[in-house]
């Protein structure tokens, strides 16, 4: 147990510099880029003293390095600042939108794994047959399909021509989300309240966006699963199991797959960034009220503090996930030295 804790601490310590780099990058991007947000806000023809006054208010007239220190200090206290356009704390819209994105991303991940892994296993078992080539072709092509195009096509087919699923939003227009909204994770909230009609509605709204996200990223998992399975199926203990007369099914699914899955855990962590990126496009297409859309809305409104806050939260999230993945990997892979 102590070994795991030590590993955990070490990984956390390694995460900090990475987070640091990302936060600095965000700061640089938003301060040093051309286009003075205050002038834009007040107008190039506003009298100079008014511009200076506003800058002082926002702390933008101090030397860059001092601003940087202030910025880090603020973040250390968990203070993301105030919006420049609306009278609200930056954390307010973020806390409302973050659960939406997490829910979408999780279900997208479920779909990806649900499609990718079985297909990969199938391809590895039917190596170099038509099925194998077909599946590999699918895996290669699917990554090149723009997420938003996939979303539009799914909307068109399953939302318009065969109106089976809703094509926008998290809940139906007739449902008032504030009735059950506690955590922001609607699947959880509706379950907790026992409101099964709302639960059904929420799940239906998740279908098309989750599949849009999931299908486009499934290719990577197909290839990875296939490659891992091919490796594992050549190994000695598989040969031994077969020799002992264990049915093929059991060999593949019980013994081989479990070991082949270990690298997939790592891949999940790496693909998480791709999921987040794809989620932004999915949110735009399906009018999903998540972080991606918040980012874009606030960019259009030139609300730089909120944009900065959103990017910081993304960075935190990515670091957190990669940390968790590493630790889980360390726990489940018996080969990793703790």
């Amino acid at each position, binding site marked *: 147990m102590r070994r795991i804790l030590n590993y955990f601490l070490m990984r956390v310590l390694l995460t900090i510099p990475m987070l640091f780099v990302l936060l600095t990058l965000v700061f640089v991007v938003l301060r040093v880029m051309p286009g003075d947000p205050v002038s*834009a*806000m*007040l*107008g*190039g*023809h*506003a009298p100079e003293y008014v511009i200076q006054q506003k800058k002082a208010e926002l702390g933008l007239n101090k030397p860059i390095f001092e601003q940087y220190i202030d910025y880090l200090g603020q973040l250390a206290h968990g203070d993301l600042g105030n919006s420049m*356009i*609306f*009278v*609200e704390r930056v954390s307010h819209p973020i806390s409302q939108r973050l659960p939406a994105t997490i829910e979408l991303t999780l279900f997208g991940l479920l779909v990806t794994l649900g499609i990718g892994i079985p297909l990969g296993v199938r391809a590895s078992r039917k190596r170099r047959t038509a099925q194998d080539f077909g599946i590999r072709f699918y895996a290669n092509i699917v990554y090149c399909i723009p997420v938003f195009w996939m979303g539009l096509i799914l909307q068109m087919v399953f*939302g*318009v021509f065969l*109106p089976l699923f*809703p*094509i*926008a*939003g998290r809940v*139906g*227009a*007739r449902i*008032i*989300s*504030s009735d059950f909204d506690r955590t922001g994770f609607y699947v959880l909230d509706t379950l907790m309240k026992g409101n*099964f*009609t*709302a*639960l*059904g*509605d929420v*799940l*239906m709204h998740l279908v098309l966006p989750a599949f849009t996200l999931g299908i486009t990223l499934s290719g990577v998992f197909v290839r990875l699963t296939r490659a891992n399975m091919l490796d594992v199926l050549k190994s000695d203990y598989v040969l031994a199991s077969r020799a002992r007369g264990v049915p093929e099914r059991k060999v593949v699914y019980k013994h081989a797959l479990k070991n082949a899955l270990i690298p997939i855990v790592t891949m999940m962590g790496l693909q998480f960034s791709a999921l987040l990126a794809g989620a932004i496009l999915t949110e735009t297409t399906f*009018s999903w*009220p998540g972080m991606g*859309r918040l980012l874009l*809305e606030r960019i*259009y*409104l*030139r609300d730089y503090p909120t944009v900065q806050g959103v990017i910081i939260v993304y960075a935190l999230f990515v670091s957190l996930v990669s940390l968790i993945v590493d630790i889980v990997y360390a726990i489940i892979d018996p080969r990793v030295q703790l």
Partner: protein
Amino acid sequence: MKRRFTLIALAFALLCAGTAWAQSTLVYGTTDKVTVMDPASAYDQHTWDIFQNIDRGLLAYEPGTDKVVPALAERYTINKTGDEYTFYLRHGLKFTDGTPFTAETVKWSIDRVMALKGDPSWLVTQFVKEVQVVDDYTVKFILTGPTPYFPALVAGNPPYFPLSPNVYPADHFITNPSELKGGALVGLGPYKCTSFKRDEEVVLDANPDYYGPQPHIKRIIIRYFDDATTMRLALERGEIDLAYKTLNPSDISDLAKNPKLNTFKIASPFIRFLCFECSQSVFKNKELRQAIGALVNRPEITQKVFLGQAQPLYSMVPMGMAYHENNFKAALGDGNVKLAEKILSKLGYTKDNPFAFDLWYTPTHYGDTEVNLGDVLKQEIERCPLVKVTVKSAEWATYKQQFNNKQMPAYLLGWYPDYVDPDDYTAAFAQTDASAGEGIYFSSKKWDDLFTKEQHSLSPKVRGEIFKEIQAMWPDESLTVPIFQGNLYIFTRKNVEGVKIGPPLIFNYDQLRFVK
């Protein structure tokens, strides 16, 4: 397989539940956005819509007409010279927070608007000199001069609506209801706002303290849609009961043919036009404004972008309103490349040294068609080889800031009536103070004098002559160039009735009801 079945069963159950529910709740879809929930600073159609249903003015319009009737005031008297209005208020009314409605609250609210000087404050400060409390239920408005359409100003405009001093701060604007004392909006109208989630939903429930008849529909949920396409589909699938602003022209044509929906076409004085910043930008020179104005080809725009659902407009005063003329047609024409070339070459521009400027539009405030409008205008203007246009866009909040800060030399704007009078379509852009408020910064003593004269004249003949003169002078100055006049469309499910929207474009939700 089993899971899918359960899902479908759940969905079906939801559908049934939803249909049963529809009888007492109406879901109203819109692509508009709420700006700020402060009547002293909000100046857009949709936010005003909400105020017009949760608040009331001393007077009101009879639903669906432009006839002014008593509301919070039981009656009013005008003095002989027409510049003093005395309102006798209803007794015993209370705001939804319990504050009694008295003449004091009326004065407090007007004083607040005048002090905070928000965008719509000119609707008060231009006409009202001061407000006097005569007694608890009598209040006197002393005007800057006799104003024939003052009752219309009081009836339709939220800056005139009384607010509760215990809820709104006296010294600054608020944006969200959460900033109010008590955290909720408070008013005297037929509805009260019980939930506010910006860009998601606004829930209005019937106000039991309303002095008038209770609304038929007890609960209205306003659903905010990101884009018109989703809203159109939601309406077709029965997810919403009513859709208003702003559907794409292609959606409008399709929905109008749908037998399961009601179509309400409102011939409205909703106009769209091109504005120029007249004090500091390149367009200081009125000849340049004329040149660009001449290049606009209205029939092409109404056909290409709006599929014929809008009408070319040749004056800032909309068609159907009193004193409307068509001066731009004769003066500048449509797609008049020859005239533009003449003006521009005289000013020294050539093909190698063209007149270059930025044309701005706002991509969602007026509907999804703005991008196309920008594209088409660029094509039309560049038919004259001596001009080069760069099309740029900014979201409405930024857009407003930019035109207030003189950052956009040419930009597209729209206008809904504040009050049904040609003054609202002319003075609002050309009278010095108002013009600055819209980013145009046009100022001419001659024009100001004409406006002051017609604003204080009670003679239709005198006013008619003045408006004729102003419209005749407009193409020469071309501070704004009218482009088209649009219709407003409301679509509802077959079981919704009571959509009554008159010329002032006020939408009374309390008139809506379901029919079997």
